[in-house]
């Protein structure tokens, strides 16, 4: 280890000692617990994360459903047009 590295270690050790007694404020735990208690109930949290994970799949499913709906609508239009034509021809 070079002298520079040793100097770095000495300085880091001094700063570690000087900050060894740092503590959060006295009300820190109560502030954290307020945040925790404000969280949605366990079941809701439990549902939220999986829901987020499934979001891309849901978006894909929604897009496929839309495409399917458009194609069915088109088929229905064509079927009705054919049926109208046949009705007209028969008349």
């Amino acid at each position: 280890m070079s002298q520079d590295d040793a100097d770095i270690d000495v300085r880091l050790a001094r700063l570690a000692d000087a900050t060894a007694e740092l503590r959060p404020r006295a009300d820190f735990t109560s502030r954290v617990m307020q945040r925790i208690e404000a969280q949605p109930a366990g079941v809701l949290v439990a549902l939220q994360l999986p829901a987020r994970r499934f979001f891309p799949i849901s978006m894909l499913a929604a897009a496929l459903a839309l495409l399917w709906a458009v194609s069915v609508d088109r088929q229905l239009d064509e079927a009705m047009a054919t049926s109208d034509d046949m009705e007209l021809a028969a008349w």
Partner: protein
Amino acid sequence: MDNLGEAVERVRAGDTAAFQRIVDATSARLVRLGARMLGNVVDAEDVVQEAYVKAYRALVTGEFDGRANVATWLYRIVTNQAIDAMRGRARRPKPTDTADETSSELASAEQKLALAELADWMDELPPDQRATLVLKAVEGMTSPEIAEILQCSEGAVEQRLVRARAALRKRSEAP
């Protein structure tokens, strides 16, 4: 940080109040870690508070399966939050001294000077190198422990330490 397994199990079973035992047992070390990485106690408290919220959600949702050591897992969340905060800070202009004023009740003059010295000295290190050096040389952790916290190989830890020290050496050689 003593054995927190029982508190973890109670939180997972829906006992929110049991989370306080985890906070009581870990907050001093975690806030100290955050302050050493970020340079002041106010930012460290914010980071650790967010980390606790994340940890609570992970417990409730079962994302944390309880097999890993709770203390290591909390260290990991706080370190990642602190790295994110350092990155965010690098993108924003430096704030004024408001954090210093607010933290006057939190730390003695000597502690504030030490934190400021640490932050200033490591200011130009990339956040991951800074976090690695603090965990190793200030928190006194071993390379395998750091590798577990940062979820990287021991080789990567050693490499970050070498780079961090080289950057600090270069800085001290600069006129």
